[in-house]
């Protein structure tokens, strides 16, 4: 059974008294021990999708569709079940550890809190936490427990956050841009640790990032989100060999080269649409170099293609062209 199954998830958030759609249609599953990268431009809804899984959406959010953890509906959980889910089964790593860890309590308080909350003995919890800290490469773990967040560097603090997530031995790990707030060297250190721990423990992971290459490097599958729609879901290895969605191709082409930071060819022309601005057709149509009339009129369904799924009317025809030229040259 899949660890996580998201079916036709749609989310609306209250904005100035009215509900505004931020997710239209997200269908996604994660098997045991599998890592799925959720990628997309800023505002695509990556954070909202991952938060929906743990029921951490802003107050007043309307959620449609279905989210299942090991077959149990997350949306139907009562208070006690939700607490059990959060304390035992799932853990989240946030982007900015400085903001996401209480600045006035010690690292020890932070790490132990979740374990004590579910009734573990303090001594056991302490031993467990020290072991996890050492495992994620935090030196002098015993001393760290007495320190405060402002006494630690950003990279160290993110390791603490990862340790906190691993300490509860979850089955599912949600990581929302865990390295974006860090400098480049620290980023790769943290990624290596996260990846190693995950593989070691056979954790299922939803890895949120706007960096397609990074996701492809650490994940088994890539799910691409555009304006609140899941537009493609493919094995990470297929990405370079077998591109099927014009948006994914554009993302790949527009990624700045981290080694020689010059703009690579072209970014995707046009501004990313917000989910609530999307019209009747394909959400990507206004920016898509391959759009035809049908694209503006009819919304493409997410359908199975090869080893993955894709939501594009022209996926089959375009398969060869996209792989050859990452920057679309123009429509026919």
């Amino acid at each position, binding site marked *: 059974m899949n660890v996580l199954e998201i079916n036709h998830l749609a989310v609306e958030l209250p904005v100035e008294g009215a509900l505004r759609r931020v997710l239209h249609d997200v269908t996604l599953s994660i098997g045991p021990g599998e890592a799925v990268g959720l990628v997309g431009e800023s505002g695509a809804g990556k954070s909202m999708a991952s938060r929906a899984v*743990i029921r*951490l959406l802003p107050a007043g959010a309307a959620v449609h569709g279905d989210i299942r953890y090991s077959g149990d509906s997350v949306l139907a959980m009562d208070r006690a079940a939700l607490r059990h889910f959060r*304390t035992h089964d799932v853990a989240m790593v946030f982007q900015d550890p400085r903001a996401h860890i*209480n600045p*006035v309590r010690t690292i020890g308080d932070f790490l132990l809190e*979740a374990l004590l*909350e579910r009734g573990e003995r303090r001594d056991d919890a302490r031993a467990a936490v020290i072991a996890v800290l050492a495992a994620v490469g935090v030196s002098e773990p015993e001393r760290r427990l007495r320190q*405060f967040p402002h006494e630690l560097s950003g990279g160290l603090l993110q390791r603490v956050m990862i340790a906190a997530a691993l300490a*509860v031995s979850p089955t599912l790990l949600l990581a929302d841009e865990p390295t974006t707030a860090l400098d480049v060297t620290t980023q790769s250190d943290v990624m290596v640790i996260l990846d190693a721990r995950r593989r070691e423990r056979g954790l299922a992971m939803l890895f949120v990032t706007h960096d397609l290459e990074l996701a492809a490097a650490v994940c088994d599958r890539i799910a691409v989100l555009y304006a609140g729609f899941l537009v493609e879901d493919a094995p990470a290895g297929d990405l370079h060999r077998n591109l099927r969605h014009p948006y994914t191709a554009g993302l790949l082409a527009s990624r700045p080269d981290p080694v020689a930071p010059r703009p690579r060819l072209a970014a995707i022309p046009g501004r990313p649409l917000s989910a609530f601005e999307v019209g009747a057709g394909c959400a990507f149509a206004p920016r898509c170099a391959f759009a035809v009339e049908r694209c503006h009129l009819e919304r493409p369904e997410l359908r199975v293609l090869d080893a993955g799924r894709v939501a594009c009317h022209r996926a089959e025809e375009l398969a060869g062209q996209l792989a050859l030229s990452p920057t679309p040259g123009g429509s026919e």
Partner: protein
Amino acid sequence: MWKVIGERAVSLVVTLLVASVGIYGALFLAPGNPATLLAGGHATPAVLATIERTEHLNEPFFTRYWDWLVGVLHGNLGQSFVYREPVTTLLAGRVGNTVFLVLYAATLIIAGGVVLGLLAALDRRAGAAITVLTSVGLGIPSFVAAIALITVFSVKLGWFPVFGSGTGLLSQLWHLTLPAVALAISWTAYTAQLTKAAVREELGREHVETARSRGISRRHVILRHVLRNAMIPITTVSGLTVAGLIAGDVVVEQAFGINGLGSFLVQSTLQKDFASVQAVSLILVATFVIVNGLVDLWSLVLDPRLRTGRA
């Protein structure tokens, strides 16, 4: 920590010196001759001259101030020429009432303000009512509150005494309840509004979100993350409350006829009783400075980020 205590001690001494010169000077310049007051109705020039001589009333300002200062440094607050008693004795009988009243009011303010503010921030419906209540409460000066409370609870209902401060703990509590409430009303409203704003702000913090994502119970999230962090701004501003309480105490003691430092200060000022005014004023100033110092130290305890580099 020690550095902060040192800084505070120095600032206390400087503040007291400046305040004492200021107060002494103000009384010195104020119109009216204390000798006339002392002599009562039959002030012949000869009587006045005698009084002025024995009380050193016609010496120059700095001579008199210096004499007083030397006395204080020897632990002698001087002699009240109105009561013809050492000021220390006069204060001893009054200080208890004032301390009781101020502590009583402070307890009401902190407990009431924080609970109301927390409730207002957490519960939408209670919040609306509390917001209205605190906006009204904020605008009620303590003398108006005093008159209203006396009218309703003492005169009409007869639940509380109209006058005096009582002896023994229970009687004191009973006598000082209305004065403490009068003193506390606007500050409780202020603390409640401040608490509400601070709690709202903390509720929206990312680390609170983290705590919720980890399945920490709502009670623990509120206590350990929201209220715990909101205590920092609440503590910082409570120094202001102390200044307000000291000013309000003078008014409330007059209104309820409480024999405390506040009413003593008013009488002594009217009678130009230098030594008494000086002593009471300095006690009030010192209290203000010391309490603010304690507030600073308490902030250091609450906020580890302030401790680095200042310890």
